[in-house]
């Protein structure tokens, strides 16, 4: 059965984020104007969300003796330029742009003190300052070179698969708020998804961030579930892989109804559905 490879340190998997950093990401989410001028930009929400998610991925792999390399992780930003936002250290560069998660854990750009509510040990909560790692900051400039980003992602996963031919295949999560400005992304997405390990083809999931007040369309199973008057929604639907078994289970636990045809795609995502879907999309299977 595909997408069932055990994830271990000998057989890690890869998670690669592609983050839209185009100028339109300076705007807040659709509907945010209701909340006033203080609404954060989509770029800020996305950077915070992905930094939080990287922190959670590290914590899923952390044991008392250190961080186990169940995952190799990459982040590619695309806007003014297409560039890797996390870099391997000089002494350990596997050449794929995907960094073992223990290296990521030990090398955040900086640690920030943030106020967090924690248990007071007596049934209530209390506010405390916790150390929070930050790997990259928000950016929003120029166009949306998504095709170049998908191409760089394809190079990364191809090289990574050469080194890990039996692993659960790489998961690529593309988060964008607009249309590609450098070509037809479907062709690049198909190329990216054509690479495979013994356990299955590369998984590409797409999250389209909302610029409108429309309700999100989450995890559609058929093309007619996405807005039919939006050609771009149809393209992103076609670009997206079907969810493998483990992620269908994770989606069901989050309350979604799923089928064998359910795609890893959210259209018009609000911040809540962004977080929820990234959580589901980074749950390949249990770690060993």
């Amino acid at each position, binding site marked *: 059965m595909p997408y069932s490879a055990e994830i271990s340190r000998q057989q890690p998997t890869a998670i690669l984020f592609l983050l839209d950093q185009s100028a339109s990401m300076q705007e807040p989410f659709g509907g945010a104007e209701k909340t006033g001028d203080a609404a954060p930009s989509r770029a800020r929400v996305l950077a915070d969300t992905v930094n939080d998610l990287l922190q959670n991925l590290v914590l899923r792999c952390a044991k008392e003796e250190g961080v186990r390399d169940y995952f190799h992780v990459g982040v590619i930003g695309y806007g003014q330029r297409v560039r890797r936002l996390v870099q391997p250290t000089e002494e350990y560069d596997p050449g794929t742009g995907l960094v073992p998660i223990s290296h990521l854990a030990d090398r955040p750009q900086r640690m920030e003190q943030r106020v967090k509510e924690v248990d007071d040990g007596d049934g209530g909560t209390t506010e405390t300052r916790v150390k929070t790692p930050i790997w990259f900051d928000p950016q929003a400039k120029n166009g949306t070179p998504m095709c170049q980003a998908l191409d760089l992602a394809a190079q990364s996963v191809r090289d990574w698969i050469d080194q890990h031919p039996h692993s659960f295949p790489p998961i690529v999560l593309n988060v964008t708020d607009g249309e590609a400005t450098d070509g037809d992304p479907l062709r690049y997405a198909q190329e990216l998804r054509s690479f495979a390990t013994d356990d299955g083809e590369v998984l590409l999931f797409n999250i389209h961030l909302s610029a409108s007040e429309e309700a999100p369309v989450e995890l559609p199973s058929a093309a007619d579930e996405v807005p039919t008057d939006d050609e771009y929604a149809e393209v992103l639907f076609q670009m997206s892989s079907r969810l493998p078994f483990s992620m269908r289970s994770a989606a069901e636990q989050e309350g979604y109804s799923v089928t064998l045809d359910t795609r890893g795609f959210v259209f018009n995502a609000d911040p809540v559905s962004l977080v929820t879907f990234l959580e589901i999309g980074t749950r390949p299977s249990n*770690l060993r």
Partner: protein
Amino acid sequence: MSATAGPDSSGGDASAVDARVWAVSKGDANADAYEDAAHVRAEAWPVRAAVADGATESAFAGAWAERLACGVVEEDATTPEALRRAVPAWQAAWRDAVRERAAGRPWYVEAKAEEGAFATLLGLSLRAGGQWRAVGVGDCCLFRVRDEALVRSWPFDAGETFTNRPALVPSRPSQTPPTPEAASGEWRAGDTFVLATDAVAAWLLNSEAPVGPATVGAWNEEQFRRAVEQGRTENTLRNDDATLLVAHVTEPPSPGPETAAPPMNQS
């Protein structure tokens, strides 16, 4: 690597119960701490035994599994009510020990310590008068074998029943623990009780595996280790910590109050 439970794991020579614990940690080139735990106190009535399985995604999970298995045996916390009463003190002991170990470590070790650990748990108590009772949270399994035949499998009786999301006992007091399940019955001389953590339990219940709960009582530690290696190679046994506790009752129940029943070397 194999690991065995602590010094109280072997049966006392005065006991009517012969108990053995075998354990093989998950097969991995980077062998890590074994995160199951097993304890047994067989030298006096009531005989108590427990196995626990620390959840892989939590840190300091082996210490939590150890605290739970040891606590059940020391305090005979083998009813849901007794377990519910006992857990808060074990949680406090775990928190104090782990805070000390995590202090000054990298941000993720401190964060994991704050997140707490989780474990499944199974406890068994055999009373001198011939009764047994068990308490469990999650997917550790109890098998009762008589005349080389499986007569009870609890809480699961099929390998397919195991999921990746068992109920777990949390180390953090703020997280509501699942309601423990309970079972009880009568034992007689010659009965064998087998306690297994989930991977071994699913393997013993797998109809395609050449092993079963009724066969393990005759094994020795070396046979267990070899069977585990073979099961992993043949993919009938999941690559996880493998722990088996076998308690064989050699004498019939004693009538009368438990304290009057031999053997009497109560600790």
